[in-house]
């Protein structure tokens, strides 16, 4: 890190109620074409503190490919149906459910000096009534040893830890619900 003077970051603000004609785009939630080899469905519901599904949230996911490589390819906004860019955007529907078509991310190389992290998908959450975006991680449930060694997961108590681990569906997909508040509140992350 340089020791130059740090600039103070610009504050965030809520995404508000009217993003629906601006942020969504064609195939925004299809990191791969549905049905293509290796594709899975990632889905879940976003809940408020009263346990109600919220109809006006929009999520972004950002993940490595199936081999654990961080992809740096353009083309997310105009998908050609072949290029996996690793990033997608999905608004929830009226019942508060979001879906993505993606791949299981592979394990990436560890950060030097740290234990290898279990594979996860990074998530940013925006909603009306949410004053700033929230970050979380969707961990794959399959490799218990990697999960046990993960630095973030092992810093959490068991009840909170499980809010970050997706459920494997019978069809091979993943389900990951997000609870903004209250019982089972998802662990949200601060990186600063």
């Amino acid at each position: 890190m340089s020791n130059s003077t740090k600039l103070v970051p610009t504050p965030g603000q809520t995404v508000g109620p009217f993003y629906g004609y601006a942020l969504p785009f064609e195939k925004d939630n299809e990191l791969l074409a549905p049905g293509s080899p290796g594709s899975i469905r990632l889905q879940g519901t976003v809940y408020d503190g009263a346990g109600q599904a919220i109809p006006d949230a929009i999520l972004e996911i950002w993940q490595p490919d199936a081999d654990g490589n961080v992809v740096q390819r353009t083309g997310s906004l105009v998908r050609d149906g072949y290029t996996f860019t690793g990033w997608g955007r999905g608004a929830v529907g009226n019942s508060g459910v979001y879906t993505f078509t993606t791949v299981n991310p592979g394990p990436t190389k560890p950060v030097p000096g740290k234990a290898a992290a279990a594979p996860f998908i990074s998530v940013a959450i925006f909603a009306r009534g949410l004053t700033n975006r929230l970050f979380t991680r969707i961990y794959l449930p399959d490799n218990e040893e990697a999960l046990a060694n993960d630095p973030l997961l092992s810093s959490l108590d068991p009840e909170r830890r499980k809010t970050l681990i997706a459920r494997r569906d019978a069809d091979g997909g993943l389900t990951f619900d997000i609870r903004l508040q209250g019982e089972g509140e998802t662990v949200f992350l601060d990186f600063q």
Partner: protein
Amino acid sequence: MPEETNAQLESDESVPPAEPKAAHLPLDKAIETQADLSAEISSIGEAYRRALKDGAQPETQPRLDYPPYRSSILRHPTKSLHHTDPETIELYSPAFGHQDVHALESDLTIQHNGEPQGERIIVAGRVLDGDGRPVAGQLVEIWQANASGRYIHKRDQHPAPIDPNFTGIGRCITGPDGSYRFTTIKPGAYPWKNHLNAWRPAHIHFSLFGTEFTQRIITQMYFPGDQLFPLDPIYQTIVDQDARDRLVASYDHSLTEPEWALGYNWDIVLTGAKRTWTENEAYGDAGDDDNE
């Protein structure tokens, strides 16, 4: 232009399609007034200023828990955010390039056959990281109401005219120096239903990416001197005056174009980057393929 893909439920921030004027709304005792809200806003602000005097660190981001913005009450986490070091994927950002965004998408006044109504403006500035490095080749998205304060969104039922020549969405890719530039129309203020006679100050929504996903931010840019600032529970979710000021653009006569448009400057600073940078990245070519 993207289709509206998310038909939303009636939101409590939309205005019902009732009578054209709110003046004859029944004065239901349950309806909270601006005075009620302003009292709450002041009391939170005073408590913050006292804490500052007692040595608290200045806050730089909005409070997630800010009850005057009623929709936030059930939508803020009650546990503090869990600090963690960003790892692997979080240290990179998705790549966007000129195959994603057409150059003309930065002009919101040429998306239809005719000229939109209202005051034509230029909004330009730079996207920087916390170390002052330009964020080059990254996506900037904006959306806004028209000059009358009306969004195209079908849930916006504010009885102000839709402008057939204005959709209110734009995109661009930042230049090598982190610069962005939009030509648009100055948006109007608009009413919402947080409380009786609630009005949002004129604003443009901005969506920004950095060089790392942890820098992702969506925010709102405001215009200088707006009399609605002290009354607006969303602007006031940021309790620190210096931090709030960072969302207000400056009028900049050097951006103003003669006999064409007024210019506003607004620079955006993302949080500091954590990844160790290579020289190529520092010069900002990452993220754009040569195949277009």
